[in-house]
């Protein structure tokens, strides 16, 4: 099954880490990511720029699009990236995502495959 993993940075998680510690953590994330990608468990994904770069478009049934500054959810936790994973079932997804090397919050959502 394919799942989208939304990766959110919690406020408490990364603050308090020195720049060196943060760089080290990024290093751990990227080597873990490469390993999973090589094994075929991560099939896509990116890190995103910060919420201050977000633009939200709300489009109604009449076709009007309203453009606003900022993310669509004003929350403490901000989506910072995503991964597309391909595993057997939710237990495997949970096991994989539980290895995420950084103090973040991760949401697993099954993907609707229309292929």
């Amino acid at each position, binding site marked *: 099954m394919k799942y989208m993993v939304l990766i959110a940075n919690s406020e408490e998680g990364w603050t308090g880490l020195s720049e060196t510690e943060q760089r080290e953590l990024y290093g751990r994330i990227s080597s873990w990511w490469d390993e999973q990608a090589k094994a075929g468990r991560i099939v896509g994904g990116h890190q995103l720029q910060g919420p201050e770069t977000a633009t939200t478009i709300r489009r109604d049934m009449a076709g009007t699009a309203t453009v606003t500054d900022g993310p669509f959810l004003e929350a403490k936790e901000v989506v910072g990236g995503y991964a597309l994973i391909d595993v057997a079932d*939710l237990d495997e997804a949970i*096991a994989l995502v539980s290895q995420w090397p950084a103090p973040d919050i991760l949401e697993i959502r099954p993907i609707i495959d229309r292929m």
Partner: protein
Amino acid sequence: MAPDRPTRTVVDAQLAETVREERGRLVASLVRILGDWDLAEELVQEALVTALETWPRDGMPRNPGAWLLTAARRRAIDRLRRDARYRDRLALIGEELRTVAGPSVESADPLAQDDRLRLIFTCCHPALAREAQVALTLRTVLGLETPAVARAFLVPEATIAQRIVRAKRKIRDAGIPYRVPEAPELPARLGQVLSVLYLVFNEGYLASSGESPERRELASDAAWLASLLARLMPDEPEAIGLLALMRLHLARADARFAIDGSLVLLPDQDRGAWDHEAIAAATELLARSLRMGRPGPYQLQAAIVACHAAAPSYGATDWIEIVALYDRLLSLTPTPVVALNRALAVAELEGPEAGLAALAPLADRLDAYHLYHAARGVLLRRLGRVEEARAAERRALPLTANPAERRLLEERLNVGS
């Protein structure tokens, strides 16, 4: 007719037990084979309806499990033939249906796993909300009807129905697997299952006698589920420990309420009204789990209850042992409620002042818990600090909705002036 009644009751009880055993087993197998929870339950329900029509007339079959299995299997194949979704897989499914292991059926494969274990672990999957785990387990594993679940939890029927529908949908759509987790995940997942069963038990056990009978039956239903789990996982000491814990509580249940429905606390209980045979059996069960050398929170809680149950009187309780057991329990599960119970044992061992001192650090975390204030009330009264005791009891009163507990607090407030 009167002379018929006892036999009827025996047959009814036997029938009820057979239905409880076989229904769950069949549902579990059909869920695995068909991958469709609703269809599985429907087929088994239909087979049961036929059985309940046929058996009283023709007598109970020698092997009721095999009878039901055959009936459900026939219906399943019949239904699947008419359903386009299954046409391609019909041959395969038909073959699997033939190999479903009935317990009482001489199974060709002695290792055939009882599918109920998969069913239980899936119902209690951590990706489901706690209320959904509870409702789904009671509905699917135990076979409780939705209205009964609703009455037991004092929740509207529609709410329970919706929880069950949503949970089944999430299992399907999110890809929650139908299996018993493997070694690395097993301890945590088993913990989830045990806590669901214990929650159900407590919900029933704490209910007062005046309330709907479903609530009290819930405790024995939970004990039945725990015995099922212990049978299916004979090498898991915590599963056995939970069963021993529930049975130790149930063995003393009759002494917990006075005839007028009011709550009788441990010091005042008539120990002659306890079921000492059941206590001995449960204590032996606990000893068996402890011999496995992997103690855990349920075994320790059972050991505490067993220690109370072994005491000839409240005064003669081995408080040194009880405090030692609470210390071990607290090191495994450092929750404020465990600390509260430990403080009460400390009060018995070292006096009410020591108990109050042990309660003090819990003030913030247990401020909204009625038993914290009630416990302070008891200890303050023992020290003759009646005004402070009354203040604590007045704090406790609005924090519980249980009528028996409320009555007890009100009585204390009335006599304490």
